[in-house]
């Protein structure tokens, strides 16, 4: 679809930090484009995330938010453009290589290992974090791996699932599954955490708890994260910066206050209902 | 013999051998493509087709098996080949319906591996049932001499360029071409086919349009089965008939599907022809002598089949005419 309604100028006016000036941004995309057949899911996206920053991406359904996340995690190959993490281009890497470099992702729908226990779920993530993407340790008893264990316990403690450590993951209530899912993502102690709708499907209380959890890790780990969320309450409360996508393009970008007042955003996403 | 006539013979042989694989592969492929069901029991349908054809067309005397022990050694209707050619597909079609309803349907939502395992198990059960009932002896499936007592179908036939060629094998090529053509038209040019093709991509949406997709599914399974049955009838006289024929033909049939690309009829045809031609060519190639070393190709005929398949799959994992898998 090649309509030319409302693109271009707005995006160009938003400031794009120049790279390599002293402290390098943690994540940078340049002209990132992904096409599916004829459909342009992300269209020439330049996104910059600084260390320690909390960025939210919002936009209507199909705007390309998940696609953007998937491109960064290397689940999808970009049609065009470059992605740099800590200054290194990650295009062409395998997903696990990107994870090993410090990019972790929490999935849109709870993606866990259903038949394993909660502890084992966390342990797998801890293992990948401590031992790298592959090892020849098939004869080492895993209980000997003290470091992995500590990390597992810490992770479970952090997401408050220590008491359910022996439960099979699939038997957890929905909210706890999401919690575990976030735990798995956190176990790697990533530099950058990508979260795609972490509170989807949660009740208000669970949502609250998750937001608190995110706040907590944010404080403790000084984590950089990119959040995709439709719940504006969360978005506006925890982001430093908000990026608005529409039909694959960045149509606005700024602090929560700036975004709240931006008419384009109103139009494209918030629905044009006057506030 | 001229090189031209030799090449023509190889081509014709390849076509004919490929034809049997095509019949099997078309069924396997539409079932796999449409219903996402992996049928390791497809060979069993071929087996059933062969035996059914034998018993309808001829009068057979069993020399082993339980039926013989129970006193039913003389078997068969002896209605002739045309009857078999008409009745067997109907019969195997019905079996296909039963299979879809009672075997495949409960497994649509289970992992592929379970589908493979359960159909593999069923294939063994069918084979053993046949072994027990009809004995494991190979039974001769004599070629029909005439159809309707007037049309000669056996014996050699003088062809231009090629010279003598078994008449029945030409019939096999013809029958296959016609049937595959019919199925192709059915799938590509009828409402039924439209529903099936749409269901391949999004079964739920088809239902949301008010179409009961389970019936086309049944029919697709039935057609696939019937084609396997036909393969059994037309292929039977070219082979011996015994309970292991189903298992033996299964692997090349699967290979055909995978080479050609799952879910496309044209792919199954291309795959079958490649397999048939590779086989016929390797057997037909004259040996090459380099210095004192003679290389004979015919021992490689089977290896070649799998090697070609492996190469095709490595270069084009989705098969020659297969669609690329949709990204996750």
């Amino acid at each position, binding site marked *: 679809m090649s309509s030319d309604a409302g693109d271009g100028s707005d995006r160009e006016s938003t400031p794009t930090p120049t790279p390599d000036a002293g402290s390098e941004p943690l994540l940078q995309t340049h002209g990132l484009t992904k096409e599916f057949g004829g459909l342009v899911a992300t269209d020439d996206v330049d996104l910059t995330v600084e260390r320690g920053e909390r960025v939210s991406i919002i936009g209507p359904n199909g705007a390309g938010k998940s696609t953007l996340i998937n491109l960064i995690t290397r689940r999808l190959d970009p049609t065009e453009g470059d992605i740099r993490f800590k200054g290194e281009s990650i295009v062409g890497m395998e997903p*696990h290589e990107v994870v090993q470099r410090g990019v972790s992702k929490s999935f849109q729908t709870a993606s866990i290992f259903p038949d394993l226990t909660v*502890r084992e779920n966390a342990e797998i993530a801890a293992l990948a974090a401590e031992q790298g993407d592959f090892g020849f340790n098939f004869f080492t008893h895993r209980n000997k791996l*003290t470091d992995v264990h500590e990390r597992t316990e810490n992770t479970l403690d952090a997401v408050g699932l220590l008491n359910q450590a022996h439960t099979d993951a699939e038997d957890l209530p929905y909210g706890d599954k999401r919690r575990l899912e976030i735990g798995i993502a956190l176990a790697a102690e990533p530099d950058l955490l990508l979260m795609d709708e972490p509170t989807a499907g949660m009740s208000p209380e669970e949502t609250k708890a998750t937001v608190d959890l995110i706040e907590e890790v944010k404080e403790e780990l000084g984590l950089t994260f990119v959040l995709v969320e439709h719940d504006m309450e969360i978005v506006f409360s925890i982001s430093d910066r908000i990026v608005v996508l529409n039909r694959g393009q960045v149509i606005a970008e700024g602090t929560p206050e700036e975004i709240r007042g931006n008419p384009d955003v109103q139009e494209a996403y918030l629905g044009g209902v006057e506030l | 013999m001229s090189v031209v006539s030799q090449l023509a013979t190889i081509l014709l042989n390849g076509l004919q051998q490929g034809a049997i694989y095509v019949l099997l592969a078309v069924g396997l492929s539409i079932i796999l493509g449409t219903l996402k069901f*992996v049928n390791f029991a497809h060979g069993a349908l071929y087996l059933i087709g062969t035996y059914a054809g034998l018993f309808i067309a001829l009068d057979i005397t069993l020399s082993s098996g339980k039926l013989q022990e129970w006193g039913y050694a003389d078997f068969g209707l002896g209605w002739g080949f045309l009857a078999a050619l008409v009745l067997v597909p109907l019969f195997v079609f019905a079996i296909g319906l039963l299979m879809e309803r009672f075997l495949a349907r409960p497994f649509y939502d289970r992992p592929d591996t379970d589908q493979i395992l359960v159909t593999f198990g069923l294939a063994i059960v069918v084979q053993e049932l046949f072994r027990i009932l009809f004995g494991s002896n190979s039974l001769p499936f004599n070629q029909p001499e005439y159809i309707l007592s007037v049309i000669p179908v056996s014996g050699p036939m003088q062809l231009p360029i090629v010279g003598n060629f078994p008449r029945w094998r030409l019939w096999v090529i013809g029958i296959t071409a016609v049937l595959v053509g019919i199925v192709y038209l059915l799938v590509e040019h009828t409402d039924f086919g439209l529903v099936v093709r749409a269901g391949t991509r999004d079964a739920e949406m088809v239902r949301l349009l008010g179409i009961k997709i389970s019936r086309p599914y049944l029919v697709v399974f039935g057609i696939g089965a019937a084609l396997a049955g036909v393969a059994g009838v037309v292929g039977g006289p070219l082979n011996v008939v015994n309970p292991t024929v189903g298992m033996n033909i299964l*692997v090349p049939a699967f290979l055909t599907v*995978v080479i050609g690309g799952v879910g496309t009829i044209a792919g199954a045809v291309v795959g079958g022809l490649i397999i048939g031609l590779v086989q016929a060519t390797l057997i037909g190639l004259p040996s090459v002598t380099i210095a004192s070393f003679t290389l004979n190709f015919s021992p490689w005929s089977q290896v070649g089949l799998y090697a070609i398949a492996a190469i095709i799959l490595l270069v084009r994992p989705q098969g020659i005419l297969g669609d690329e898998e949709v990204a996750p």
Partner: protein
Amino acid sequence: MSDRNTTGEGSANATSDGGAVISDGSLVARWEAIREREVTVVGLTVIAVALFPWLFSRAPVVSDLLLGYQSLATLMLIWGIFAVGFDLLLGYTGLLSFGHAAFWGGAAYVAGIVANNVSADPIVMVVSGTVFAILLAWVLGFLSLRRGGIYFSILTLAFGQMLYYMSAAPLAFLTGGENGLTGISVGALFGQFHLESELPSVAGTLLGNWMYLFVAVFAVLAVAAAYRILNSPYGMVFRAIRENEQRAEFVGLNVWRYKLMAFIISGAFAGVAGSLFTIHGSYVPLQSLYWTESGEIVIMTVLGGTASLFGPIAGAGLYLYVENIVSGVQTLYLPFTQVVLVQDFGTYWHLLLGLVFVVVIWVAPSGIWGGVSDLRSSVRNLVGGDRR
């Protein structure tokens, strides 16, 4: 704490039921408990393996009922080794290979060819067969793992068949083609002990011959190795891949290489078993590369129970028992009576296995061993209350 749960499944979590206190002390304690359990598993295996041939083929009453015999006991262990390795792939990693005959048969041929041309030392045979299987698994795994699901199954099937046809004709000068590899005479173990000869004294009564002892050592090693692998990081990664391959990739694991390792490891087990098969039979049938042989190991593993350590061994034993003993039963009587239930019962053996197999997949995917475990735990619950 060490008196239960010796099967190796889900063991690590059962230990920490003391609570969530994490300190070096408890880790050490836990490691020791594990060690202890490992010793227990291996110990029980040793006992079972040591008693089995006697019970099966010599013990009064029991062996008469079972109708067993020595070389079948040996063969069961050999296939058991194969099945344990196969289950690492099918049960734990979730990959269904229909080409494992390539490793079993390939190793068998290499062991035989080595015996005929290089050294007939049984240990050399096992080592060379296994090394070959590992290399072959590496190559075939590399190729087949490019696709998942049914395509993986079909690719392994195709490559396995290719090997079969290779040794049927083009390589017949090496393999004997359709005749099989004949004329293998296996040397004495350590140049001393002829494998066919009886073991001295009690060992002879229990184990029978050196052949059994030789195979039994490998069987115990196989169980120990599999147990260790399952309790190593690999075991967990394998199961993670089975459960959710994509997520495993996204926690930073190189899933492809782990799958390749799973394939190679299971190929190695098949290689050991295949080499032992040659030593046991001093003959390699061409059939050992045919795809139905791959089908057999699939059936054994699934029947016995995937994703368990001993299930596949039980499955292998059961399959061979039915194939070799039940198949010879003429008339089935109602137990303890002369009432004829089925005439020619033996001829139905294959049908019977096929039916049981289908039923198992349909209703009891955890197989026989799974059934036994369920039974055991429900009995334990009945008797011991719910002491977690």
